[in-house]
């Protein structure tokens, strides 16, 4: 049966949510601090360049967000577009992978 698969996917959705909760709060606070006095590339890069903490922070964030978004879209596609089954599963898996790759590229660019 696919009960185990669905249980693990459900757990992955909730686990990534738990991981992201503090990260999102941190992200929101960083946004509020960063936008004071306007945004500049120099300011962003001076905060993030070569910083192991931000690399880990955003690396983990990207990984969790990619998985979480893909699983969320899987449910939306199934319910609102009627798109379900193996093809839908592979499609959202590809979307998640693409998001993670784009995200890692972005993290690599600013670190």
């Amino acid at each position: 049966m696919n009960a185990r698969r669905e249980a693990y996917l459900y757990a992955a959705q909730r686990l990534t949510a738990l991981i992201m909760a503090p990260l999102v709060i941190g992200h929101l606070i960083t946004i509020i601090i960063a936008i004071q006095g306007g945004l500049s590339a120099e300011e962003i890069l001076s905060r993030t360049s070569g910083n192991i903490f931000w690399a880990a922070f955003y690396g983990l964030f990207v990984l969790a967000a990619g998985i979480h978004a893909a699983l969320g879209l899987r449910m939306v596609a199934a319910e609102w577009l009627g798109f379900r089954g193996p093809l839908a599963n592979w499609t959202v898996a590809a979307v998640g992978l693409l998001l993670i790759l784009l995200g890692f590229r972005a993290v690599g660019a600013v670190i």
Partner: protein
Amino acid sequence: MAGDDKDATLSVGVWRGDADGGEYVEYSVPHRASQTVLDVVTWIQRNIAPDLAYRFACRVGMCGSCAMTVNGRPRWTCRTHVDKVARNGRLTIAPLDNLPVVRDLAADMAPFFEKWKRANGAFQGGETRDDPIAEVRPDEPERKEADAAIECINCGICYAACDSVRWNPDYLGPAALNRVWALHNDRRDVARDDRLAAIGGEGGCHLCHSQAGCTAHCPQGLDPSGGIAGLKRALFRAALKGTV
């Protein structure tokens, strides 16, 4: 509106049709004190439209057969007072949503009970009449959970109020899953892991998004939504243990 006003009339739109479709037909019904929606339907059938199809049995909120959509919400019509739901003397009555129609106000409950079976909703004991009776204390936490879920009358109201059913017709729905939650908390039952496997796959409990329309509409005051959350937790533990 005043319940004792003998001249008052209700304007009632009743859905008439069959599995292929239908439309609302207007009827005028005298308004009476303490009148239930089921009284209104019965009055129409006896005085105006003898061919009106609907379903009821006990009239006292036990059998679960008279559920219909009243002014857009699923309700048990025998225990729903007209004065509570009519707006400006107006009622619309339709068969339950999310189910095919047999005719007029009678929804086809077959898919509802098919899912009950698919969820393995029957108790499965492992003992015989020769074994001593299992002692289950009323204050055990599991027994309390089972108690809270056990008063379901199979009326289908939660099923009609559930958007997860609406959006995915394969979804087992709140009633069947509530039944599984009751059995899951019955330690005499020997099929609890099999049952988790039966309700954990596609169309299973993970399609619930805790909108809790079931809990909001259940005439028995049950909380299927909370029970389904319990099943999700149980399935995760079972997956870790490798029993599903």
